[in-house]
């Protein structure tokens, strides 16, 4: 993946290469392989050793376009953090199932941040219908097909589980 630090302008490459088990991973940062061992992890904080040096990072609220972490007390904001909404979109049926599927299901457990459509609205495939928050990340949920919104099963502020039906589009 590619990352850009907001106030530096530089672009960095980073990816997970291999899982070694026992919470240890080989990752690659700027073409260099590093060892990463997770000591503790919660939904908004991670403690880890990177090549035998300890770091603690806190995840602040983020959108899919930006990601802010406080690492060892220093706040760093990355642009274009991940391809997560694309993945969510893909899994929602947009590619595989097509128009036959009525239900727009949640591909991820989370909290409903906002609902951007009403019953009766005409929507196009790829329109953002609502935004979920999961692990301090905001993820846009897009329509998997063209159609008319038949019903909305979610409420703003409520939690949805993975695979919950959020809307029905016909």
């Amino acid at each position, binding site marked *: 993946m590619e990352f850009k*630090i907001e106030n530096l302008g*530089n672009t960095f490459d*980073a990816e997970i290469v291999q*899982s070694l088990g026992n919470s240890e991973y080989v990752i690659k940062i700027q073409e260099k392989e590093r060892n990463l061992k*997770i000591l503790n*992890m919660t939904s908004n904080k991670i403690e880890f050793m990177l090549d035998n040096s300890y770091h603690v990072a806190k995840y602040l609220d983020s959108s899919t376009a930006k990601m802010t972490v406080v690492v060892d007390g220093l706040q760093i904001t*990355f642009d274009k953090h991940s391809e997560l909404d694309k993945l969510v979109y893909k899994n929602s049926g947009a590619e595989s199932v097509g128009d036959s599927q009525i239900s727009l299901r949640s591909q991820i457990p989370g909290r409903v941040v906002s609902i951007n459509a009403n019953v009766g609205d005409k929507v196009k495939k790829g329109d953002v219908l609502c935004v979920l928050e999961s*692990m301090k990340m905001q993820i846009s949920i897009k329509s998997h097909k063209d159609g008319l919104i038949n019903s909305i099963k979610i409420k703003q502020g409520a939690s949805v589980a993975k695979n919950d039906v959020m809307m029905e589009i016909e």
Partner: protein
Amino acid sequence: MIEKILIANRGEIAIRVIKACKTYGLKSVAVYSDEDVNSRHTKMASEAYHIGAAPPSESYLNMEKIIEVALSSGADAIHPGYGFLSENPDFADLCEKKKLNFIGPNGKSLRLCGDKMLCKDAMIKAKVPTVPGSPGIVEEVEKALDIAHQIGYPVLLKSVFGGGGRGIRLVNNEKELREAFEMASGESKAAFGKSALLVEKFLPKIRHIEYQLFRDKHGNAVHAFERECSIQRRHQKLIEMSPSPAVDQKTRDEIGQLVIKAAHAVDYTNAGTAEFLRLDDGTFYFIEINARLQVEHPVTELVTGLDLVKLQIDIANGKEIPFKQQDLKLKGCAIECRINAEDTFLDFAPSTGPVPDVNIPSGPGVRVDTYLYPGCTVSPYYDSLMAKLVTWGETFEESRQKMQMALSDFYIEGVETSIPLYKTILDSKEFINGDLSTDFLERFKILDRLRDDIKKEVLNKTDAALAAVIIHSEFLKSRVKPHIGSSVRWKSQLDKT
């Protein structure tokens, strides 16, 4: 003898005084506004009383209410801290009237210290050098020209009625002085019905050096050496230290003698501070007395071993100062950084709000006076000082290194702080060389350097940040679909914690 002290203040200084009470077996009474129900000072004191709404005028400046609480709670003394009512002569008088022991100078002395012109007059009589200029108000332009001629251009023309930087004009020669005098005089008459102008020598590059002093009710006075407080922003101190790199032992003693004279001249009692300007040629000019315990008093405590609050209480109790001038020794070097909630890059604008997490540094030679705790709030109603970070070392360099270590360990979540600025200052060769002045930040373009330092620090931490981000991202993906081998493990990692 004092047995129960009401602390008419909040924040770190209230906590400092409450801890002294606990240490010396005295009861403490806290007062708090609506905003401070959950503040540490409220929780630490033996007793705590609500005194009003958040704005200071409705709580911490409400003399009658505070006196009422003191009397009803059975307190026999009031410690005013700094700011708020600490230098208010009417409050000191009111305490005296109600037979409450005000831990500070009496009303008369406070009045004298509070009136810059009266105070300057007293100093001139006591032969304590003050900034050259007119001894009082100048009414005629010819008189102003005479004085300017005596003290030499450039001079400042100051309106008595203007506060802070307002109503101050810098003039470089006779012509400018004539024009400025006329204009200022006219403005003043239009605004206040009368004109009151002062002429004072303009001092372009100065250090701010102050002396800690004590005077007991028996007339004994001692000083506890100097603090250099030249590193400032918007005329407020940021970093203080003792000793000053610009003061040698001979100067220390000489100016110390002036400080004793100054204390006698205003019939001062209790702990106070005599402030001086120092020019590059070594000249010292007295400017004012801060008639209270100073924010930066820990600096003096660390180099002398004195407990200034204890000494304040002893003096208020009518005791004699328990040592002589020659018993005091200045040992090692102490530096204080005022950890403010402010945005350095927004012209030091206050930054307030909840502080979900805090890490307070510690270690040999590190002292932190603070009201912070995880989950506390920095209130917009009061000043921006969250903590005082003070380090002591045998030498300036040791103290500076400890400060750098402590600054890098200090973490305050949720608000902007002056910590990064201090790292840059402490790291600068000019600070290391002791080349200090009140225009230090501008003179050495410190804010530009700060920007560079932050970039460097971000680069240093980039690898760790990227590692944290890709782990986060993979974990999120694993919630969407268990399509990578590691996903189950991610889940269990999370469940464990």
